């Protein structure tokens, strides 16, 4: 193995590192394996950010191509996947900017909103909200709901909660500090919860606030 890639411990070399090493030496089949391994995730992340299917397709192509061109810059001190996600996020933000006629779009956009810092809709949800809607209707609701979040929020949520990256990996992929990731994640989660309440709230039950005031009057 080349000394240019640091393995994470002598006994354990991630299989991706070996594929990257082979791809660097011109083995395109090795790179194709990496594409097959991560294309679905890259597509999903891009869709979450750009909210447009054609753009997401372009991002998948551009991100993998850029990764291939830059393989020499991959140092192996982070996971290949985290490194790839960082490229895909940057490509996605560039696409978003192009679609918005050149207006700058960054991971910091609209994160100063106060929405979601404190829950407002306190009605409880139906015990089984997923049973209220069919599969495709549910997917529409989830897409519509996440679409309304600022890009910086939905990106953090997509990486951390949907894709399952750790807080540290999410911070690394986005070039953010850990506290910034945590703060955005909390607000993204609360905003989504608030918005989903419109669809999932238990219609038979009175809101908790009303119940509490009734109890207080007793």
């Amino acid at each position: 193995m080349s000394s240019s890639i640091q393995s994470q411990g002598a006994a354990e070399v991630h299989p991706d590192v070996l594929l990257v090493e082979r791809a660097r030496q011109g083995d395109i089949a090795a790179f194709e394996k990496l594409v097959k391994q991560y294309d679905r995730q890259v597509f999903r992340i891009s869709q979450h950010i750009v909210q447009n299917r054609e753009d997401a397709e372009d991002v998948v192509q551009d991100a993998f191509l850029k990764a291939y061109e830059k393989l020499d810059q991959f140092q192996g001190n982070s996971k290949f996947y985290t490194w790839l996600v960082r490229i895909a996020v940057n490509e996605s933000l560039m696409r978003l900017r192009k679609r918005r006629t050149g207006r700058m779009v960054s991971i910091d956009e609209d994160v100063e909103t106060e929405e979601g810092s404190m829950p407002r809709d306190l009605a409880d949800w139906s015990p089984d909200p997923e049973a209220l809607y069919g599969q495709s209707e549910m997917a529409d609701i989830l897409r519509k709901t996440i679409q309304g979040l600022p890009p910086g929020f939905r990106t953090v949520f997509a990486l951390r909660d949907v894709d399952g990256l750790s807080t540290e990996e999410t911070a690394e992929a986005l070039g953010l500090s850990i506290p910034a990731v945590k703060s955005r994640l909390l607000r993204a989660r609360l905003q989504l919860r608030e918005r989903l309440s419109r669809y999932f709230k238990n219609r038979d039950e009175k809101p908790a606030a009303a119940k509490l005031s009734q109890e207080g009057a007793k």
Partner: protein
Amino acid sequence: MTCTEFLAQLDDMLDQDAAIPLRADLQEHLMECEHCEITLNTTRKTIEIYRSHEIYELPDDLRERLHQAIVSKCRKC
């Protein structure tokens, strides 16, 4: 504990395995505050729902097309 103090810990509670009992002071607040109980449960459900539904699927035919395009561009690099 106030609701604001409780919410400041929400992330840790959501990221913690649901089977692990909550800290005693958080548990105590939940017992007496229905608002926070609903917020915790429905936010946890929000994450679960997004995790269990693939809302942006990559169809096989498109996947195949993307692979071919990527590999052919890589060969030209």
